């Protein structure tokens, strides 16, 4: 596999992640996530981890997708969540999040570069590793930023999932598809699924209770 060959799926992944995270239309975002997850599955396949690909497709794309749709209230159940995210963080809070995500990215980047630069290579293929690592970093940073920035709970769930995928990619990129890595990713996927399901169910309940879609400011119980 050549570098350009790798570049395309990598950039597609980043694009899908961005689409998933930036779209205020929640349905579209969920669809983008499913596409992202399927692409991830493909990536695992290409990294010689067929089991992982299968699990990703089943858990990441199918079940998580279902859970997210369930959270949104599709299909047809009432009351369903508004399909547009109306929650906006105050403008002045945005730069800090950008900055934090960037610094985090830099940090992770430095570490990754440190390993791939002078660490002994665990991954078999140098060529696949570079775009993998870069994609992972980018997706992770995006996910982290989105998690910190968004208020809508569904979008935060999406962000968490994307972030998770980014970390998995980094993991694979740094250590190759070894048993340990697969184990870690497998556990991660399961946890992400459970988290998403739980989160989506909670979201629905909360929305049903008082119409909220964010954590919001609690009525201060202490006073």
């Amino acid at each position: 596999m050549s570098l350009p060959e790798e570049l395309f799926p990598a950039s597609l992944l980043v694009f899908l992640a961005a689409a998933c995270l930036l779209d205020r239309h929640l349905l579209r975002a969920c669809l983008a996530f499913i596409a992202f997850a399927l692409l991830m599955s493909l990536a695992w396949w290409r990294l010689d981890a067929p089991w992982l690909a299968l699990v990703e497709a089943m858990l990441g794309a199918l079940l998580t997708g279902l859970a997210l749709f369930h959270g949104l209230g599709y299909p047809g159940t009432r009351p369903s969540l508004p399909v547009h995210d109306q929650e906006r963080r105050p403008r002045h809070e945005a730069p800090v999040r950008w900055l934090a995500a960037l610094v985090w990215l830099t940090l992770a980047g430095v570490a990754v570069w440190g390993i791939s630069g002078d660490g002994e290579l665990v991954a078999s293929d140098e060529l696949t590793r570079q775009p993998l690592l870069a994609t992972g970093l980018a997706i992770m940073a995006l996910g982290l930023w989105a998690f910190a920035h968004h208020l809508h709970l569904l979008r935060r769930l999406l962000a968490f999932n994307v972030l998770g995928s980014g970390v998995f990619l980094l993991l694979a990129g740094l250590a190759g598809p070894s048993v340990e890595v697969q184990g870690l990713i497998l556990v991660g996927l399961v946890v992400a699924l459970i988290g998403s399901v739980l989160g989506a169910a909670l979201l629905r309940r909360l929305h049903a209770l008082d119409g909220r879609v964010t954590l919001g400011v609690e009525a201060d119980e202490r006073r």
Partner: protein
Amino acid sequence: MSVLSAVPLAAETAVLWVALLIPSLLGLLAWRFPPQRMRPLLLVITPLPLATFWLLHRVAMGGELEGVWSLGELLLYWRLDGLRGLLLLLTQLLLLASATYAVGHRRAIAVAERTFAGFWPLLGGLATALGIIWVAADLLTLYVALELMGLCAVGMMLLPGKQAALVAGMRYLLYALVGSLAWLLGVALLLGVSGRLDLSGLAATTQPGTVTSIAMALLAAGLLLKAAIFPLHGWLAPVHASAWTPVSALHGALVVKASFFILMQLWQRLVPEAVAAAWLLGLLGSMAVVWGGLQAWRAQALKQVVAWSTVGQLGYLMLAFPLLAGTSAAVATLAWQATWLQLAAHAMAKAAMFMAAGNLVLAAGEGRLTDLAGTSRQLPFPLMTFGIAAVTLMGLPPSAGFTAKWLLLQAAILAGQWLWVAVLVAGTLLSAAYVFRVLRCAFVEDATRQEVQPLPAGMNLIALLLALAALGLGLGADWPLALIRAGGMP
């Protein structure tokens, strides 16, 4: 699965794993057949701590137990030394207490049996996860156990189903998951740099350097979030406000500390010499002490006081990092003992305190401090328990909190790190302030009060026993501390 350890230790190994897994099995069983009475439950669970005690005895006699499980190509490492054994014993004692308490609690809050049944498997899972965290010696096992613990804890927090509980649980869930990912990222970097996941191997192969540092920082951030260390503690207090008492008890006592335990393990192995970062951790702990104390002092609801006190008390544990980093062996030994003694003392006292507070709130029917007026007459038992547990939290003699504080202060003075002395002083005074604020409210005599709801005697008794155990550990600290000194210090 095969056990790779030496033959003479086979019995011990078997006992260990049975002791670890039994809670989960029992939990599943209880899901189907919820326990109705306290005493049978007590009888069923009591063998667990006994078995662990036996293990601990073996460890004390013959040194550490170590082993590897192979799962196909995957090697999973475990290890049982004095410290881990004690933590396991502590976990099982608290499991015993909270499970028994939960039976009474269900009756007292009059919740449907099926609604409550979900508590049991989650409790079992939590206990197993905690047990595994204590004995696990590689990052994968730790990851699995950490996630299991987190999810079980979130699940338990959500059980009451009230809106406040759901919001708090949602926040907890999100932060727990993100914290795990930060941790996983750190693990990824470590794996990348050394290719190993077992702790001793990691310690042997990793060189201090940029990558290790960054990995450690990421790991630490994730774990600090899970451990609710200032300023990442925001999720903790709301979670406890609406949780059921036995859940709060176990959570405040052990769950947050599991993350601390892992952090301590990794820090000591990977970056023992990072003095500046250790000081940062110590400073965060100091701020936690002050912030938690202040919030507890200003809190209006009883359970909030207890929850915030957890934030403050966790800060004490963080002082271990600067006292262990780059200090003399004498200081390090003192700080090491102090930390774990403080952990145990706080675990028992906090569980007792949550239970006592829960009893007070249940019996009085109100959760605000001002509603406690007159409880000293009507509810002397839970109030007394609260007081005894508070003695430990304040670090007054003869409690284990006092002994731990003595050690910590001794270490700080010996190391000449006077800042921590000031922090401990401030923490003690603040904890006294919030504890006595509660007691003061309870001693008010001139308030009218309706009848109190009678509670099963067992609920009070369990809390009292835990509080007394924390108290007794103060003077009986020699044996556990000898175990901690003998093994466990990396």
